[in-house]
């Protein structure tokens, strides 16, 4: 056996890289599991306002999103240049909100329904009239837990 002939044993053996890929695959899977792919592409441009007191949004699975902003340049032909609301995958009207909230409710189990939060992701240029309309609709729909999305940052 070559191992015992003495001469070869003095060389440092090459590191076995075979398990390296396993380790990295594990890392890969870890990241794949904890990250979420963007579910729907945004049709509206959103630059969130900044705040210093922002907190994290808990329980991601119980959040439904309302996106508000000016349509992206390539969508402007279709949807105009005024701020619009995007629910899930389509541009909608304020009046669609009640159905949207109801749909989101149906998707969750009975026990989770009281904890559904509605996150309003709005561009900072949006006027409050629109946001107020959304809030009024949400009140009517009974979705009272809301969340104003903002990014962390200091004062302007």
């Amino acid at each position: 056996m070559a191992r015992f002939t003495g001469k070869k044993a003095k060389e440092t053996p090459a590191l076995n890289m075979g398990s390296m890929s396993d380790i990295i695959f594990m890392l890969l899977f870890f990241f794949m599991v904890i990250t979420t792919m963007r579910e729907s592409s945004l049709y509206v441009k959103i630059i969130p306002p900044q705040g210093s007191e922002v907190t994290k949004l808990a329980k991601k699975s119980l959040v439904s999103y309302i996106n508000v902003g000016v349509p992206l340049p390539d969508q402007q032909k279709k949807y105009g240049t005024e701020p619009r609301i995007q629910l899930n995958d389509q541009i909608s009207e304020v009046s669609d909100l009640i159905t949207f909230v109801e749909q989101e409710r149906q998707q969750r189990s009975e026990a989770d329904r009281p904890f559904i939060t509605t996150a309003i992701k709005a561009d900072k240029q949006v006027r409050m009239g629109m946001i107020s309309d959304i809030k009024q609709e949400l009140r009517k729909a009974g979705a009272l837990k809301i969340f104003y999305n903002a990014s962390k940052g200091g004062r302007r």
Partner: protein
Amino acid sequence: MARKTPGLNTSSMSDISFLLLAFFLMVSNINSDMGLARKLPPPLPENVEPPEVRERNIFVVMVNKDDRLLFNTEYGRIEDLKDRAKEFLGNPNNDIHMPEKQATEIPLLGTYEVSKGVISLRNDRGTSYDMYLQVQNELTAAINEMRNELATTRFGKRYTDLNEEQSKAIDQAIPMAISEAEPTKIGGK
């Protein structure tokens, strides 16, 4: 004897998986949604009069369509809002123009003088969302600071480090007293 098949060189395997890893790291977003959580009031029944609140217990913050602020009756700046709100809610000198306090029994804290003050936030339909969020942010900052102060004096810890029971007590002592009026429609789009 037939020629031995050489072992597959797997050293590049790690490179490939690294590439994959890097790809996923880039395209995925560990979305940490940040923001301010609020609770909307339930819709009011039609024929119920809103409860009457005494004038000294209200601090009106108005934001017009040009994003200018009005505190009660005078113009104000966003920088001053936090201190004004703190002064109003805390009422340290028991000023008669500042909100009343009501002694309440709170578990863990004993009898605490809970302020009856309410900050009334009114905005125009033309106010920008940015400004609105700044105002909300300042008001939250005021309340957070007051809660922090109380938590440090009573429990020796920051508000965020308290356990559930303690933070509940603090919440009761310093409630999130922000009320939003129905938006008015004066000019603007």
